[in-house]
């Protein structure tokens, strides 16, 4: 009788119609099926990916025992951490500049700051390749300084996103708070640190998360700026996929997917689902 007991559908409850649910279900299946298959088959005891031959974790051991792969992963995480820190500082400062001040050529500056988002990745990658070649950027530095070129490239395409997020948060800032702080004797720096920063903190968290994932995710720009000693995780996986598909790649990919999911849940804990959704 449950069929009759159910609450009738209100006209706007489109998501309760059957075909809508089927459609959303199909799209979700389309988005997740490849990833789920990848994760499941990373535990498959077979060189060939498709036939299930029993559970094993030996490809995880192999992946973690692969020094080049581990080094690439460490490089990627280091670059992502460095790029996030610099992007946050730079992005926040740029957002404050564009939000607070009126200055000559503001429109042009505003456009230029968001330009790295629009310029295709391949063009940015090419530009950095030529730039570092033209300035004769040293390639034989010790770790982690050899990651400098890649980190600089990553900051350039990450910080405009931070600026965007922080700026939309600044729009809701009540200027009177700043004036009150100043009336009470706070200096410019104190206002920034104690009033403005707490207000934009959610945007900073979101911006940090965005920068970290963007940097970790990037293949194309890194491909053009990395040298033989500065392989990142996506570049390493790319060469593995290009030359041979092995279950090791599945295992390594699964580890990165788990990292992404974990990061997402950290963000959820910090901000709640809704706030995360709104930053996009």
């Amino acid at each position, binding site marked *: 009788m449950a069929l009759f007991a159910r609450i009738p559908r209100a006209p*706007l409850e489109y998501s309760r119609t059957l075909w809508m649910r089927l459609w959303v279900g199909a*799209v979700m299946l*389309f*988005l997740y099926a*490849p990833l789920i298959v990848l994760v499941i088959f990373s535990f498959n005891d077979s060189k060939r990916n498709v036939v299930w031959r029993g559970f094993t974790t030996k490809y995880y051991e192999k992946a973690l025992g692969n020094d080049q792969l581990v080094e690439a992963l460490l490089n990627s995480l280091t670059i992502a951490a460095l790029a996030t820190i610099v992007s946050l500082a730079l992005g926040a400062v740029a957002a404050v500049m564009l939000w607070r001040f009126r200055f000559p050529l503001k429109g042009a500056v505003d456009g230029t700051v968001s330009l790295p988002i629009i310029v295709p*990745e391949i*063009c940015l990658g090419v530009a950095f390749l030529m730039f570092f070649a033209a300035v004769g950027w040293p390639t034989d530095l010790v770790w982690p300084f050899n990651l400098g070129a890649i980190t600089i490239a990553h900051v350039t395409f990450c910080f405009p996103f931070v600026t965007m997020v922080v700026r939309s948060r600044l729009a809701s800032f009540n200027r009177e708070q700043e004036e009150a702080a100043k009336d009470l004797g706070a200096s410019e720096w104190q206002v920034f640190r104690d009033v403005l920063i707490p207000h934009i903190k959610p945007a900073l968290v979101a911006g940090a998360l965005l920068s970290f994932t963007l940097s970790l*995710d990037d293949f194309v720009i890194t491909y053009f700026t990395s040298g033989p000693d500065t392989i990142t995780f996506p570049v390493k996986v790319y060469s593995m996929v290009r030359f041979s598909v092995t279950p090791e790649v599945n295992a390594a990919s699964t580890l990165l997917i788990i990292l992404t999911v974990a990061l997402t849940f950290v963000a959820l804990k910090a901000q709640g689902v809704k706030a995360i*959704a709104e930053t996009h």
Partner: protein
Amino acid sequence: MAEQDWKANRRAFAAVSLPTLFWIVLFFLVPMAIVWLYSFGENRGLTEIEISGTLSNYKRATEWLYLTIFGKSFAVAALVTLICLILGFPVAMAITFASEKWRPWLLLGIMLPFWTNLLIRTYALMMLLGTQGFANKGLGALWEGTSWIKTLVGLQPLPTWEPVQLLFNNFAVVFGLVYVHLPFMVLPLYAALDRLDRSLIEASLDLGAGHFRTIMRIVIPLAAPGIIAGVMITLIPALGAYLTPDLMGGTDSQMIANVIERQFKKANDWPFGAALSFLLIYAMFALIAIQSMRRKVPEAH
């Protein structure tokens, strides 16, 4: 909101503007300027490039071969955007009108793939679409099933199943690009639909319009800015896509980004690659200009 004039507080302005300007000039404008200059250069020997002001790189880029690749990239990106729009619009509608409890989780469901590494997602798709992959197995099972039903009703069975080539062709490129870019489309669509005034939809339904007519005549026109934003956010990265055509495409499915990459890695013709890069950037600017022109039209009334 009142903005402060920069002269009123020079020190604070310097503190926020100098780092930004320093970075954007040194690590963005200068590299782009170098590409632009090199696009007017020519190779002299193996590593030397002379910036001679020649237009030969651009002339070469307008040869038929490269024009067709540009055209094809546009066609693929447009097709991908269209498919994403058709797939994504109902999803965005469903998220908008979902209950408070479900909405964040549905959004998260769309965003999690968006945050997952692009290369891993492409690789996962390749695994699924390979000749030994599940897509082929599923199609094979379907084929066998049809064959069995045909024998059941007394018809000739179908010939034995041959695995289809789902990878390394144009189909795979479009499929892969749709897979990768779908979240890009859904999120702006949702943002636009969420802002919609629901009483307008209710009014339309109350006044006797059907659901389909309401969607076509009320929802879509009101959500138009969001739809255009979604189209741009999908179209631009799809046009410059490198990874998907490189890994999933065949010899005939290279897009403009692959041609650019080849000039820098294998062909070692940096000036020509630089010219192609700038043509791609100009194409993006043209797209954005068309979009902002469209946005201004309703304001004129």
